[in-house]
């Protein structure tokens, strides 16, 4: 396998409702910043791939306008996944492995504020038997939270602790949307949104964009002082029907983590794409992270959750700490679908 690394990362500040900028205007400064920081000229970048969703934009081909703005002249080698940008990054990693490109620009954007996002994602469900019942995303997450609490012996207090810690850590993240200092008691005094989940157990609705530049081998070493090398990357799907899965565990994360080599050496930190508090605990178990491993020092998806972007941000946040010299080995995770149906795990390493 070729050695491939993250050499730059940029993201927009996540906001509840971006009213002044459309998707493209939100994305452009981010792409420009990521390319500028990469030390590569735009024309040198051999592959471009993005992640976005037409259903968030409310119209078909939402990636087309973005591509126009990012720039495709002279014509470029380009692809798009209708998924979180983390999966676009996976496609870029594969492309670099074929040897057909030595560097890649990966970007993602999403405005969740344009519609009722909890209802929009209901359209991801089985269109014949489940979607017509319109179970919203929070209700499905609550089912999973209940299953997890009953199976694990954990309590709502444990969930509240995740929320409190995430928003506290987010105070140091200028790109975060929600941050603040609250006590667990304070959070637990709130009413349920959908039992056993309270408002603080749920992610904010966010608009945002992010971009990453990948480079292989000597190109990465040339342009970046401390590249964040991809030590392993893998992703796995689970069955769609909720009744076919053990919602209290994430088998797909466990398998992807094993294949990506999470357990091969000590982990300094993890950025887990856990939009709901209980999901962080499920993912932590699945990846067998030691209790001392800091999770989501950025505040995670509980502090900013732009759909189609939040997974790519996890990889960017983990990589950034390696590029800054603050960590030697980090784990990043991205998820897609209801109740953690599909999961990607990426191990990032410094010092090669």
């Amino acid at each position: 396998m070729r050695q491939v690394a993250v050499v730059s990362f940029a993201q927009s500040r996540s906001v509840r409702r971006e009213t002044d900028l459309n998707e493209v205007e939100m994305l452009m400064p981010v792409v420009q910043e990521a390319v500028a920081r990469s030390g590569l000229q735009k024309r040198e970048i051999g592959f471009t791939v993005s992640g976005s969703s037409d259903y968030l934009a409310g119209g078909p081909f939402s990636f087309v306008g973005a591509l126009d703005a990012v720039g495709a002249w002279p014509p470029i080698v380009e692809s798009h996944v209708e998924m979180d940008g983390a999966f676009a990054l996976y496609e870029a990693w594969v492309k670099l492995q074929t040897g057909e490109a030595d560097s890649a620009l990966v970007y993602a954007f999403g405005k969740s504020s344009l519609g009722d996002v909890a209802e929009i994602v209901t359209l991801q469900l089985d269109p014949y038997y489940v979607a017509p019942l319109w179970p919203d995303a929070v209700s499905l997450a609550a089912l999973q939270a209940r299953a997890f609490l009953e199976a694990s012996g954990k309590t709502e207090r444990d969930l509240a602790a995740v929320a409190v810690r995430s928003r506290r850590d987010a105070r140091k993240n200028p790109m975060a949307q929600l941050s603040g200092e609250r006590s667990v008691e304070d959070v637990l005094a709130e009413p349920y949104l959908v039992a056993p989940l309270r408002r603080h157990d749920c992610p904010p609705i966010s608009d945002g964009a992010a971009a990453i530049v990948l480079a292989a081998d000597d190109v990465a070493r040339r342009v970046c002082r401390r590249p964040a090398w991809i030590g392993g990357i893998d992703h796995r799907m689970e069955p769609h029907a909720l009744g076919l899965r053990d919602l209290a565990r994430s088998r797909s994360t466990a398998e992807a983590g094993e294949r990506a080599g999470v357990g091969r050496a000590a982990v300094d930190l993890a950025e887990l794409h856990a939009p709901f508090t209980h999901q962080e605990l499920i993912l932590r178990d699945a990846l067998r992270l030691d209790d001392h491993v800091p999770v989501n020092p950025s505040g995670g998806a509980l502090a900013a959750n732009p759909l189609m972007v939040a997974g790519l941000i996890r990889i960017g946040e983990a990589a950034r700490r390696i590029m800054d010299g603050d960590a030697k080995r980090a784990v990043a995770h991205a998820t897609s679908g209801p109740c953690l149906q599909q999961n990607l795990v990426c191990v990032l390493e410094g010092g090669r």
Partner: protein
Amino acid sequence: MSQRCAVVGIGQTKHDTMRVDVSLNGLVREAVDRAMADADVGWRDIDAIVVGKAPDMFEGTMMPELYLADALAAGGKPVLRVHTAGSVGGSTGIVAASLIKAGVHERVLVVTYEKQSEGNAMWALTVRMPFQQAIVAGAGGYFAPLIRAYIARSGAPADTGIRVALKDRQNGLRNPHSHLAFPDISYEMIADSPMLWDPIRYLETCPSSDGACAVVLASETAARRSPGPAAWIHATAMRSEPTMFAGRDDVNPRAGRDCAAELYRRAGITDPRRDLDCAEVYVPFSWYEPMWMENLGFAPEGQGWRMTQDGVTALDGDFPVNASGGVLSSNPIGASGLIRFAEAALQVRGKAGAYQVDGARKAMGHAYGGGSQFFAMWIVGSEKP
């Protein structure tokens, strides 16, 4: 670094206006089951799945790979979902091939489909978006002016489009999967059909189809375990250019020319017309055959129409194009590109039945999308590259 990759299994549905007899799952499985039977593989043999389709709004299911996971036995496997507009079928095949070329997987299932009857593609294509140019024309209205520009540039005879449609519809009669089949098709019938978007007549345009196409790709090692002949991938290429850019020539787009040039270079082809035996080219409106013949370098600029008029692109011609009947005969949009790729593979595997091109050993599959700004192509051969 780059491993060999082959097509070892191909499956298509019967394409039709409304496949009311099957769900989305059922439609997809009809193609997948046939592809897996062709490759003689079971679910355990599949390492990863790549799903491709055009906008989710065509069916109303968001990110449908999540729902399709159960029907595709995707539990425990990596699944990617590609969406690159009309070229998506081709792009999906190329992304899947890269998983094998990179040495990540041994066998990848490629799944593409569209069930257009679930929605209204015309509507889904023309949503008025804030701050964006409204097209409000559908695909035919978008491409008709480009065709008129082509006719003005090339001086092509006015009936070139009719002749393409006649050839593709006659070829389509030989293909059991074809959506449209007019047993009594004739030159007059097409010429007399209503003008939809001048110069595109009703019978010169593609249908809206329900349909799916699946392909099993294998590494060199894995390919040995499939009994049928393999179609070896000699090269793949993708190119995109901007939609709204004053400097682009959207009649003969540079992205298409660049894509073909890279494809030929990677496949070691110097004279595509001589070195290839046939091509499956994305022709949703008849006139796009001569236009793409020029864009792909099979004919000099302004001369593509001669290939049609001289019968070169006919099934018994010197360089058959769309022996399968092409997009004019079946157009499940998300699958149409992969169908082109798969039909090229069928030809070099010698398995194209009633529309087999004699002695086909090397063939091109071509797909394009958007307003002619996205391109995906591959070349497959009966011999290893």
